[in-house]
C-alpha cells in the first residue's frame, strides 16, 4: 500500500467511526497507522537506524556478528550479522506533515521525516498470515528524512561537567496530546516537547530545565534558532533539510572480531563519529586534534602541571572524557563512550599512529 492510499483509507475509516459517535482512535490491522496535527500518534516500537553515528548512540553498547547456530548441531558454518535498528525509541506522528523518533536511551531526538509515519508490516506481520519478516523485521520510514542527529547531545548542562552522566529516561506526559519527554541528567531534570514548526522543514523543541544553573544548546549540522523565555526555559526552532538514509555506518565484516587491531581502530574512528570533532591533520575542531596526541604533554583545565598523553590517558579520555579536559575546550562536551575494551584498544592503536604533520 503506498502512502497516499494509506492516508485516504485512514481518513475514510476515521470518518466511518466518527459517524457512529465514537471517537476512539485505536491501532487497527492497518500496518501504516497515522496520527494528525490535533492528535498525534505515539508509538513505541523498534526503529530503523537511517545512518546515525556512534557519537549519537554513545550510550548504546555494540554487538558483534555471531556464529550461526543449529539446535541439533551447535555452532555451524556461517555468521549472523547484526542489523541496524534502534531498540528503545518512541515515534510520534502528526499526520502526513511531520514524524520523529525520540530515543529513551540517549534521551534525544534521533531523526525526523515527512510523508507517512511507519510501514509496520515487517514487524507487525502480514494481516492475513501474521508472519513478520524473520531477519528484517524493522519498520520502514514512510517518507523522506529531514533531520538526522549528528554530534554530541545538543543540550549540555554547564554547571555539571565534573562527572559525566548517562541520561535516565523518566517517562512522558501528554500535554495537549503531544508527549513531553522527561529525563534526568545528573541533578538536572529536563523536559522537552517537539512539535512541527510553522515553516516547511522546521520543527520546535520546547525545553524546560530544572535543577541546573546554566545550559548550552547547539545543533550539529542544522540551523537552530533559540528563543529564551528564561535561561532554562527556551524553545529551539530547527530547520531541517532533505537527508538521504545511509548505511555508511555499517561495519565491514572483517572488523567484527574481538581482537584489537589497527584497521578496526581506523574504521571505528569514522563509525563511532570521532571524526566529527577530532581531526587527524592538526586542524582544530570541537575537540583537540588526534594528530600528535599520543606521547604529548597536555595542558588540562584545572590542573597545574601538564599531563602525559600515554595509553592510560587515551583510554580514560574515551571512557570518561570529563575526567581531563584539554585547556580551551568546552567541558562536558564529549559524551562518555562505554564501548567494549577491544574497541578502545583498537582506537588506541590507531591514535598511536597519528603523528604531527
Amino acid at each position: 500500500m503506498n502512502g497516499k492510499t494509506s492516508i485516504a483509507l485512514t481518513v475514510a475509516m476515521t470518518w466511518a467511526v466518527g459517524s457512529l459517535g465514537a471517537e476512539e482512535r485505536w491501532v487497527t490491522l492497518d500496518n501504516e497507522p497515522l496520527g494528525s496535527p490535533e492528535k498525534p500518534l505515539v508509538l513505541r516500537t523498534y526503529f530503523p537506524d537511517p545512518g546515525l553515528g556512534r557519537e549519537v548512540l554513545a550510550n548504546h553498547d555494540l554487538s558483534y556478528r555471531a556464529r550461526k547456530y543449529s539446535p541439533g548441531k551447535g555452532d555451524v558454518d556461517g555468521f549472523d550479522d547484526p542489523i541496524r535498528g534502534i531498540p528503545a525509541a518512541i515515534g510520534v506522528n502528526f499526520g502526513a506533515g511531520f514524524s520523529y523518533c525520540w530515543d529513551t536511551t540517549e534521551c534525544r531526538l534521533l531523526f525526523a521525516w515527512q510523508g507517512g509515519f511507519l510501514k509496520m508490516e515487517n514487524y507487525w506481520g502480514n494481516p492475513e498470515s501474521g508472519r513478520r519478516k524473520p531477519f528484517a523485521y524493522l519498520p520502514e520510514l514512510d517518507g523522506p528524512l529531514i533531520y538526522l542527529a549528528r554530534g554530541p547531545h545538543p543540550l549540555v548542562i554547564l554547571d555539571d561537567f565534573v562527572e559525566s552522566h548517562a541520561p535516565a529516561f523518566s517517562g512522558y506526559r501528554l500535554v495537549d496530546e503531544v508527549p513531553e519527554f522527561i529525563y534526568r541528567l545528573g541533578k538536572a531534570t529536563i523536559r522537552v516537547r517537539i512539535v512541527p514548526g510553522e515553516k516547511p522543514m522546521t520543527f520546535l523543541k520546547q525545553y524546560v530545565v530544572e535543577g541546573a544553573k546554566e545550559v548550552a544548546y547547539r545543533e550539529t549540522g542544522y540551523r537552530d534558532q533559540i528563543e529564551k523565555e528564561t535561561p532554562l526555559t527556551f524553545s529551539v526552532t530547527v530547520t531541517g533539510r532533505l537527508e538521504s538514509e545511509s548505511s555508511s555506518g555499517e561495519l565491514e565484516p572483517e572488523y567484527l572480531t574481538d581482537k584489537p587491531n589497527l584497521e578496526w581502530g581506523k574504521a571505528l574512528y569514522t563509525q563511532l563519529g570521532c571524526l566529527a570533532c577530532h581531526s587527524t591533520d592538526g586542524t582544530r575542531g570541537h575537540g583537540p586534534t588526534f594528530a600528535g596526541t599520543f606521547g604529548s604533554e597536555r595542558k588540562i583545565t584545572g590542573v597545574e602541571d601538564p599531563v602525559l598523553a600515554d595509553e592510560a590517558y587515551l583510554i580514560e579520555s574515551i571512557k570518561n572524557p570529563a575526567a581531563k579536559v584539554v585547556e580551551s575546550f568546552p567541558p562536558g562536551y564529549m559524551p562518555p563512550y562505554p564501548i567494549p575494551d577491544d574497541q578502545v584498544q583498537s582506537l588506541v592503536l590507531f591514535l598511536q599512529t597519528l603523528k604531527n604533520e
Partner: protein
Amino acid sequence: MNTVSTLLVCVFGLALLSGGGEIRAEDGYRLETIPFPKGVPPEVGAIGFNPSGELVVALRRSDVLIARPTEDPNQFEWRLFASGLHNACGMHVVSDQEVIISQMPELTRLVDTNGDGSADWYETLNASWGMSGNYHETNHLTPDGEGGYFLAIGTASHNGPVFYNVRGTYSKTGRRGRNYSAASWKGWVLHVDADGVMTPFCKGFRMHNGILRDRNGNLWAGDNQGDWRATTPFYHLKKNQFYGHPSSLVWDPEWDSSRDPLKVSLQEWSAMRTPAAVLLPHDIMNRSASEPIQIPESGFGPYGGQILLPDNNGKRISRLMLEEVDGQFQGACTHFWNENGLNLGNNRVVFSPDRGTLYVGQTSRGWGALAEGVQRIIRTKESVTDILTMSLTPNGFRLRFTGPVPDSVRDPGTYRMKSYRYEDGPSYGGEKLDTIKVAIPKVLRVDDFTVDLPVEGLKDGGHIYELSVDAEGLRSNVFCYTINRLRKE
C-alpha cells in the same frame, strides 16, 4: 454519551464487531468468545480487571482497551485507555486510573491524571534490562505484595537477529546458542522494589512467559519446551537458584566471564540446576507454558487454590496439583480444558471480580497460525465430578475426588499407568526415555472421597508417572505426576 449516539452505537455496534460469540460447554463450565471492535487485532499481551469491574486488555501493537463485561459476549463496549506501548506483556491494575504494564523496553506506570478516562502520564518505573533488538525478548510481571514487582525477562531467539546498537550491555558469549542472552539480564527473574530499584532474583530461564506470586507468597514460572527444556517445565522460584538454561549465566556476577556457559559439562550443569516442580509432557499436556494463575478458593468450582497453566501453543489449559514432599514442591498436572472451542495461543489469564469467570487472552502473532482473541470460561451451576488431587504416598499414589468416589473407578482395570523421564540438553526438546508400564494391582479405599493406588518401585529424580483413568463421567482422565523426591512416610 447522549441518547442518540448511544442508540447509534447499539444499532451499529453489532455490525462493527467481528467474530466471536459462540458458546461451548464442558462439564461444569461454559466457554464464550468475546469480540473486539472491527479491525482491531486482538493480540492479547496482558489482561486484568480494574476495581470498577471493567476488563482491561493490553494489545501487543500499541493499545490498552477497557470494557465492562456484559452477559451477552457480543455487547462489550470497548474504549481506549492508553496507546503507544511496545508489545505490552504484563499487567497489574492498581486502580481505575492507574495500570502498571511491563512492555518490551520497560516497566511503565500508566496514569489518567485528569480523570478523562485515558492515560496521560507514562512513567518509566524501571528499564534496567537490556534490549538486543531481537523480537523474542518478551517479559511478564507479578506484584511482590509490597508495592514492587517480580519480572520475568525472556531470551532472544536464533530465528531473529540482534541490533548493532543494543541497550544495556552486550555479551558475545551470551549471544551463542539457540535461545540466547545477548543483552543484560535476559533469562533472569528480576525484582524491582516500590522505589524502582532492581535486584536480580534468579536465573536460568529460556522463555518464562508468565510468573505468579501465589496467595502464600510462593513464586512460580513455567517455561517453554526447547533447548535445555526437553518438555514444558513449571518451576518453584527461589532466590539465586539456577533453573537450567545456561545462557543467562553470563550476567551472574559470580560467573567467570571468560567461561562459555554452553560448554559446561552436563554433570556440572546437573549439579547446579534446580529441577522443575512439575514437568508437563509436551505431546499430551502443554507445549508452551504461559501465565500461571491460582484458582480462587471458592466461586470457580472445586479446584480452589490450585494453579492453572495455559498453553500458548495448544488449545489447552493445564491444572496443577502441587504438594510439598521432603520440603520441596512437586506434583501432578492434568487438563483443566482441552480443545472444545478454546483457541490456540492462550497467553494471559485473569479471574473476574466475582471469581466465577476466567478470562483468557490469546496471541501467537509471528509464531505460526493466527490464534488471537479473548475467550471466557464461566463456571455453571452443573456439578463437577473429577479427580481433585493426585498425590504421592510412600507406596504409590492417592487420588482424592471432588465428591464420593464413583463406582466406576473402584476396579484396578480402570487404571493404566506408565513411567518415563526426560533429559534436558542443548538440543531442542527431548524424547520420553525409559518408558515402562507400571502395574496397578489394586484400588484401596481410604475414605468416601479417597482411594490409594499402590505402586511398586517408585523412582525419583524427575520420573513422570502418567495415569490414565478409563471411566465415564470424570472431567479429567490423564494425570502426570513428577517425582523429584520420594515420600518417606
